[in-house]
């Protein structure tokens, strides 16, 4: 689904944030990206999304149907006068999809159907993340990218959102998620990418769990 070959990237005149990284994310995989602050997790996501261009190497993505959820809470204008339905409809128009039923289906999937006429600012942090996940699900995406979506979300909501993500992944959608919570990583992922100073090591779930003790400090 996503293939990175010898990708390098650095911000202006600094040391490389991503250093000769090569990974291959297979169809239907759930890849969690972990690493310390500044290890290049968000930069990697932005490279894959095309916000930045790699200084060397090649990134190829098999699909253009990508859903993206970033770390929103506290980041967006919660006084913006927009209803959930309006927001999802604008997204639907942007991805050139005309099937309005998808809005209700996506909201139903995240358990937020009854909130469709509420203003976005009237929702709690966890509810907002669900809405953004629903937005990412519009247009039948093949690849979902999540960047630290659990920041500021309580434990109970994290479990609920995790269940939704597992359900989505079981339907064959490839997921790439940056996460700091190792419990979530163990529970959801099929593969784990650990970034250290821009270089990566990929583990499958079993080998990573064997080394659990040595990674407890991540």
């Amino acid at each position, binding site marked *: 689904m996503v293939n990175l070959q010898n990708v390098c990237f650095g911000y202006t005149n600094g040391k490389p944030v991503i250093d000769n990284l090569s990974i291959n994310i297979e169809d239907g995989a759930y890849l969690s990206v972990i690493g310390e602050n500044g290890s290049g997790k968000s930069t990697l996501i932005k490279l894959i*999304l095309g*916000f930045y261009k790699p200084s060397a190497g090649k990134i190829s993505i098999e699909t*253009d149907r*990508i859903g*993206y959820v*970033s770390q929103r809470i506290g980041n*967006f*204008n919660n*006084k*913006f*006068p*927009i*209803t959930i*339905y*309006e*927001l999802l*409809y*604008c*997204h639907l*128009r*942007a*991805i*050139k999809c005309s099937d309005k039923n998808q809005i209700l289906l996506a909201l139903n999937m995240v358990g937020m159907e009854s909130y469709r*006429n*509420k*203003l976005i*600012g*009237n929702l709690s942090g966890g509810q907002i993340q669900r809405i953004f996940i629903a*937005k990412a699900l519009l247009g039948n995406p093949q690849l979902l990218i999540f960047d630290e979506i659990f920041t500021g979300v309580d434990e109970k909501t994290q479990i609920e959102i995790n269940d939704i993500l597992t359900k989505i992944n079981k339907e064959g959608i490839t997921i790439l998620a940056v996460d700091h919570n190792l419990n979530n990583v163990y529970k959801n992922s099929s593969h784990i990418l650990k970034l250290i100073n821009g270089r990566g090591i990929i583990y499958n779930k079993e080998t990573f769990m064997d080394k659990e003790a040595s990674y407890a400090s991540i």
Partner: protein
Amino acid sequence: MLQYSFMRNALVAASLVSLLCPLIGTFVVLKKYSMLGDTLSHTSFAGIALGIAFGFNPILSAFIFTAFAGIIIELLRSKYEKYEELIMVIVLTLGVGIGITMVSSGTVSTNIDSYLFGSILTVSKNDLYTIFVLSIISIITIFFLYHKLIYITFDEEGAQVSGLNVKLINYIFMVLVSATVSVSLRIMGILVISSMIAVPVATSLQLNKSFKYTLYFFCNIWFYRYNFRFNSFIIFKCSTWGPNSSCINICINHSYNNKRDCIIYD
């Protein structure tokens, strides 16, 4: 009253502006660019001065100059991320500087005061044609970009990932704001335009309704103000009537606003 051509010109021009200002103003305020109107209106001072000095239509030259300034603001926004106000101050200073230099050099012979403070009764046929063409093109463009503009205003990053050409739409938006400022110049004057774009949005935002309703309410405020209070405008020749009545509206709406839930949207 309408047998006088200057009255008819004033009514048509005011009606067009009353449609365009809310359409653009809602996006301007929600993008947190409230100072953009002020910057571009002050920049238009240079455009008017250049137009008068070289014998062009001042509204058209103001539009070209403010559109150029708007594009510079958008261009620099990516370089000075999170410091948009700084760019606006720089561009505002540039515009006012060129304008003052032109006026004090003596090349601008016409009384420029009518552009500074606005003069609804002096809208000429030529001005009206320019206002008409710019307004209609702008309204049609907003109609086609409506959902894209909402999405970009709310979540620029998300809009970019969904495949929208955010940069191009932002440049078009800047040109639209420039057009709005230029068509409003003759009626409201350089010094008042920004409040006309921003203050009524403050009123409609108090309602805490959906985007569609906010825009609709804003349009209504404008339409009533311009067309039902038209006589008051002319009698008092008072451009500041608008912001004052908006302040009253805010107070009324604030006391009225008890519910936060929005209307059913489908």
